[in-house]
């Protein structure tokens, strides 16, 4: 029993230390955004890998999500003879929740794991030691570009997912449920306009939908980097780092999504 308590205590202390190191890494990586030399090439390369590399899977994610949303809502709405509101449902769900969250989860699985694997391999083969031995700060060189690339690319990818999802819904609405395209699209627009505008032009939900991926992008790149940089114990350790990066960032994304939604309701209250 005593041993059990000690081991729990040690684990908790390990977790607390880990969280502290995680935020220290994040803080240091962000500090270098303004410091020279700034590794531009590395950042552009990472933007290409995280961004362009994720387009196909996010296209498919958006397409099928939009389609299934339209299909499901048509079944439910038909009960009330309210099929013309399919656009409202698909638009709201895609832009507010599913677009940002699904994009983030897919990118975590694809690019977050890649970051952890790459940095982990560099750690266990002493390449990070080598960088340091030539006077390079590995956080500035490796983590900062990935963090920025994630924060820049995820909002853009999310916009794409949103648009493709709405288009997928449009396809089902027109082809299967036989709702005219303009009614569907007007539905999408009214929902977005309904909750008000930021600065008079940007729909509130749209702004909220972009703030989330900005944070999710940081979570994905930060978590991948953290587990990669701290990988230990050869190739097996790299595998462990990769798995942990995906699991941890997925959970963090889902939890953060709730709190961000709550926060957005406070700072950008919807107009009723």
């Amino acid at each position, binding site marked *: 029993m005593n041993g059990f308590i000690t081991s729990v205590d040690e684990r908790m202390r390990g977790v607390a230390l880990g969280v502290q190191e995680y935020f220290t890494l994040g803080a240091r990586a962000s500090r270098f955004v303004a410091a020279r030399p700034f590794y531009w090439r590395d950042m552009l390369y990472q933007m290409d890998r995280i961004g362009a590399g994720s387009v196909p899977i996010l296209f498919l994610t958006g397409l099928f999500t939009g389609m299934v949303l339209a299909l499901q809502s048509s079944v439910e709405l038909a009960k009330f003879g309210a099929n013309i509101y399919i656009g409202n449902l698909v638009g709201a769900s895609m832009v507010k929740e599913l677009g940002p969250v699904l994009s983030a989860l897919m990118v975590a699985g694809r690019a977050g794991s890649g970051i952890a694997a790459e940095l982990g391999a560099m750690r266990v083969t*002493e390449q990070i030691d080598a960088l340091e031995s030539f*006077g390079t700060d*590995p956080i500035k060189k490796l983590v900062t570009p990935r963090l920025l690339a994630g924060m820049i690319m995820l909002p853009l990818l999310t916009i794409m997912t949103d648009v493709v999802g709405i288009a997928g819904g449009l396809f089902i609405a027109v082809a299967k449920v036989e709702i005219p395209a303009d009614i569907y699209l007007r539905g999408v627009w009214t929902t977005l306009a309904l909750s008000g505008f930021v600065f008079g032009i940007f729909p509130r939900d749209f702004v909220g939908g972009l703030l989330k991926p900005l944070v999710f992008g940081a979570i994905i790149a930060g978590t991948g980097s953290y587990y990669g940089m701290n990988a230990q114990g050869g190739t097996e350790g790299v595998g462990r780092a990769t798995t942990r990066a995906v699991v941890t960032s997925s959970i963090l994304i889902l939890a953060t999504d709730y709190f961000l939604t709550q926060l957005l309701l406070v700072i950008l209250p919807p107009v009723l």
Partner: protein
Amino acid sequence: MSTPTEHLRHIPHERRRRVRAAPEPAARGAAPVIALDDVWLEFDHPVLRGATLHVDEGDTLLVLGESGTGKSTLLKLVLRLLLPERGRIRVFGGEINDLSFEEVLAIRRRIGKVFQNAALFDSLTVYENVAYPLREAGRKQEPEIERIVRERLEFVDLDPEQVMTKLPGELSGGMKKRVGIARAIASDPEVVLYDEPTAGLDPLAIDTIVGLIRKLQHELGVTAVVVTHDIRTGFRVASRVNLLREGRIEFDGTPEDMIASDDDYIQSYLQAA
């Protein structure tokens, strides 16, 4: 606890106190270039237990010891890639534990390191690998960098035309090692740390490396630390030998002293080799 990595560990040090940068080479005089004083370090088991050693300017120190005794760890401590639990480490006359991170980076740029498994950057070509320290120091233009890279590759018996555009994954183990050496000496370091520089090389390549270490030593006065299990090669370049055993330096002297020693362990170690 295992030792957290350097980038996370040094943070409290930055705040602790600001210390003057290490003195320039001119001010060095008789002080050793590298000095470890009563250094203790443990991972999940104790590795160094009061290790004390020094390397004088122009010296080539050979560090011997069984596998797993902490030879690579010693080299990492010198670069402050690890921090000791106890003890002082002085490099270029200054204590490195107290330096800020930026000051440590400046010290590291003056030291070349050959890693045990080459540690070439996978995503960069051979050319970019060797050019890396030069670009990082940021004082040279590209044509000059290219000239130096070619020269260094020829120095380690590689044909620049053939290897420059290759990625490390396309090289044999021995070629990687030589690229690693070319990279370590690219920016004319004052000190070079060699971790197993000849492991996995054929006899002719070993000869080349020995010639290279000697050349750096005699013509440029480079101070060196060589870690190797290849005692024969080690003795060909060393001006002094240290034997690491059970976390401490058990023997310190010239190669001749070592051969003449009547210590049982030393004799059995030499016999076995």
